[in-house]
């Protein structure tokens, strides 16, 4: 934006919000000052716990009043101090002068009300339009966010729409009353990368056309590069740096900003030496998994989650399986670990085909293939100590308690944690530390193949880069074959030697990472790479 309005839509000055007693710090946010001008997108960036969402929710007046108390500062929305408003006044302002779009559109919409009526409800509360006028306005709003055939879609229920369409409905709802300020809290985080690109373009476009101010909360610097005019960086409840997009992304001054931007994996794969042709650790041929509800008399619907998947992983090599949600990449991983049974095909490890082996014969091969899951909070039994979790596997295969414990201590050192921590319970660790523990647990089995199923996707970017480095190190150290499942092209570029792109259960492209990224052959791969946020920005320069 070249010319900014002199008067900001939103001006936050010295805002401090206190946390309840007994929390790990005194203030959720402290002395936060930022402003959003008309026709401007301000990205508030930070890792989990930085206070970016608390800031947004305080502006909207949606914080739980008992626990979070604004104790200092002011929030001026078009000149009016929101902290001095009553609940009733705030209710009137929400929707009319400011609106919010949330992360998860499925839970933000009521599943049993037609989406059109949900938008109309807003008009019913805030205006005295007639029923037909409301419907007309709703269809206009749905048209405005480029939803196909709004007249028909008016009568759809949320579950009948795709994730991207649901988020468009949320945006249409936010825009229905033409508010001056739009707050978007991670609005594209739950979406696939191609859908994310569309929704980002939509928000940018609408913001230009309506000339509103947008406060955009995100943790993703790629998104920042694509959408921001200005950037506010937050850490531990404080604003550490703010400035124009180019200032922050190209020339950050605060060490924390430098560290954050330096941790964003580059989309350009690093130069890798041509791998030596090592021993094949794992092969899968014609791997199929179909889910079908075979009806009693009717022919049930059949879903091909994985179709004729072929893969080979050699020792010391990382094969990336990339795709959007529903592409079948996790199905493949779960078939290989035999958490689910493949419908047909071969999975060969140590010369044995384990694809359809009964559990009893499978047992000796189970320890060869280990898996690290996405969600670090659910991957460890909360009732067992970290040590108990790590020694469980080796002791299943007859290792004595003392030897297992010694191995666990050694592995804790390998993953960068203190061996004394073995006696602690999972809730005493952060997400990144838990993921390290899960890696230690997998390594304790001395596997040949390590599968990382979105293993770094739930982590903050700085922690993510550390865990990635750890995965790379253990692969080298134990000469593992690694299967790396991810939706994140940046992560895949950095860690994978070869890449397999999946769509609708089918492998559409496979090749060496650098070649696939430089010269994608399949149209789907091309669209994936084109949709990656912030692709023209090379972040790694500060690392």
């Amino acid at each position, binding site marked *: 934006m070249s010319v900014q309005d002199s008067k900001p839509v939103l001006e936050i000055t010295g805002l401090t919000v206190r946390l309840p007693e*007994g929390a*790990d710090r005194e203030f959720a946010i402290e002395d936060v000052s930022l402003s959003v001008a008309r026709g401007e997108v301000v990205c508030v960036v930070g890792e989990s716990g930085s206070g970016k969402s608390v800031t947004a929710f305080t502006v909207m007046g949606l914080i739980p009043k008992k626990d979070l108390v604004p104790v200092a500062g002011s929030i001026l929305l078009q000149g009016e101090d929101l902290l001095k408003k009553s609940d009733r006044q705030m209710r009137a302002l929400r929707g009319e002068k400011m609106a919010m779009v949330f992360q998860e559109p499925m839970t933000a919409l009521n599943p049993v009300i037609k989406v059109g009526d949900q938008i109309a409800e807003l008009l019913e509360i805030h205006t005295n339009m007639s029923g037909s006028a409301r419907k007309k306005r709703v269809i206009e709003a749905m048209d405005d966010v480029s939803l196909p055939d709004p007249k028909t879609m008016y009568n759809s229920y949320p579950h009948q729409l795709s994730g991207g369409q649901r988020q468009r409905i949320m945006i249409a709802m936010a825009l229905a009353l033409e508010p001056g300020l739009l707050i978007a809290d991670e609005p594209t985080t739950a979406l696939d990368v191609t859908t994310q690109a569309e929704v980002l373009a939509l928000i940018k476009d609408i913001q230009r056309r309506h000339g509103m101010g947008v406060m955009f909360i995100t943790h993703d610097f790629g998104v920042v590069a694509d959408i921001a005019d200005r950037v506010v960086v937050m850490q531990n409840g404080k604003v550490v740096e703010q400035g124009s997009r180019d200032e922050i992304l190209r020339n950050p001054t605060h060490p924390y900003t430098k*560290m954050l931007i330096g941790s964003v994996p580059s989309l350009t794969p690093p130069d890798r030496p041509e791998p030596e042709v090592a021993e094949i650790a794992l092969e899968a041929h014609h791997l199929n998994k179909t889910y079908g509800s075979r009806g009693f008399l009717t022919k049930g619907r059949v879903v091909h989650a994985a179709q004729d998947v072929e893969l080979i992983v050699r020792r010391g090599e990382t094969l990336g399986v990339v795709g959007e949600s529903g592409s079948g990449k996790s199905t493949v991983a779960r078939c290989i*670990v035999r*958490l689910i049974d493949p419908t047909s095909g071969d999975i060969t490890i140590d010369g044995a085909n384990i694809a359809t082996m009964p559990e009893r014969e499978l*047992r000796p091969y*189970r*320890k060869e*293939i*280990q*898996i690290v*899951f*996405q*969600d670090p909070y*659910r*991957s*460890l*039994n*909360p*009732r*067992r100590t970290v040590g108990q*979790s790590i020694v*469980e*596997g080796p002791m*299943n*295969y007859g290792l004595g308690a003392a030897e297992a414990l010694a191995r666990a201590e050694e592995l804790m050192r390998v993953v*960068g*944690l*203190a061996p004394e921590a073995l006696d*602690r319970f999972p*809730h*005493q*660790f*952060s997400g*990144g*530390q838990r993921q390290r523990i*899960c890696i230690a*647990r*997998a390594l304790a*089995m001395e596997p040949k193949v390590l599968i990382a199923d979105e293993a770094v996707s739930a982590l903050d970017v*700085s922690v993510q880069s*550390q865990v990635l480095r750890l995965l790379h190190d253990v692969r080298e150290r134990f000469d593992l074959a690694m299967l790396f499942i991810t939706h994140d092209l940046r992560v895949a570029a950095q860690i994978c030697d070869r890449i397999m792109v999946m769509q609708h259960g089918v492998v559409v492209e496979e090749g060496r990472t650098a070649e696939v990224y430089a010269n994608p052959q399949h149209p789907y791969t091309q669209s994936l790479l084109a949709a990656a946020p912030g692709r023209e920005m090379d972040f790694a320069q500060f690392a």
Partner: protein
Amino acid sequence: MSNLDQETLMADAVLSQKEDPSLLTVMVRNRAIFWGGILLSLFALIAIFGPFFTVDPVALSPMTRLRPPSAAIWFGSDFLGRDVFARVIYGARISLVVGLAVAVISVIIGLFLGLVAGYVRPLDAVIMRTMDGLMSIPAILLAIALISLSGATLGTVIIAIMIPEIPRVVRLVRAVVLTVREEPYVEAAIAAGTRLPMILSRHILPNTIAPLIVQATYVCASAMLTESILGFLGAGIPPEIPSWGNIMSEGRTYFQISPWIIFFPGVALALTVLAVNIVGDGLRDTLDPRIARKM
């Protein structure tokens, strides 16, 4: 390890010193559990030690029939001159034993069947359809049928009341198992070669304990009520053993002239069931958020 890592480790070490308060502390702090527990312990003490201090509850005394409550005979006497106070105290034993036995046995059987149904897919349909069948039989009718077949003893009464309670426990356990079996830590254990009995006992069973304790209190309360109903219908504990149900049943004919025969056992039953239910509600409130937070 980088500096940042060490910082987070240290921050965590500080955090972790704030331990969750122990389960016992939480329970004592909850007022429902505290007062319900006191009332219940009082009844338990009375049931265990009371009969040693009262007159014989079955001693007949034709001279003092249908006497109203007085300083000498606190709860009055019934149509055979038996002391109602002594009978109510002794009846507490029957009620508590039946309630406790039904709760414990149905939870043990239900837990086993629920674990198997939830985890061993082929057996799921078989077990659950059997449970559906059991649930469709009215408890009282089943009890009457069983007791008329095999005679009325404490054992048959307990079995008769227990059978229809089992499906409720099985359904609860199965529901918990179905959610927990999808947890990544259970899948990690499968990948680590942990055998089925270990997976069930180590990773799944502990998640069922809290909801089971709550369910057990409700089973206990409803068993005590059913026992009294059976006694009242004359289908329960044999009349020579005083239970609250059959005291009331025998007093029914004399209700208009000597209502105390029904009044006191009725109050005792109401208070006991109330106490159990209050404890159950308190446990539900304290245990459930705890599970939610830990998962």
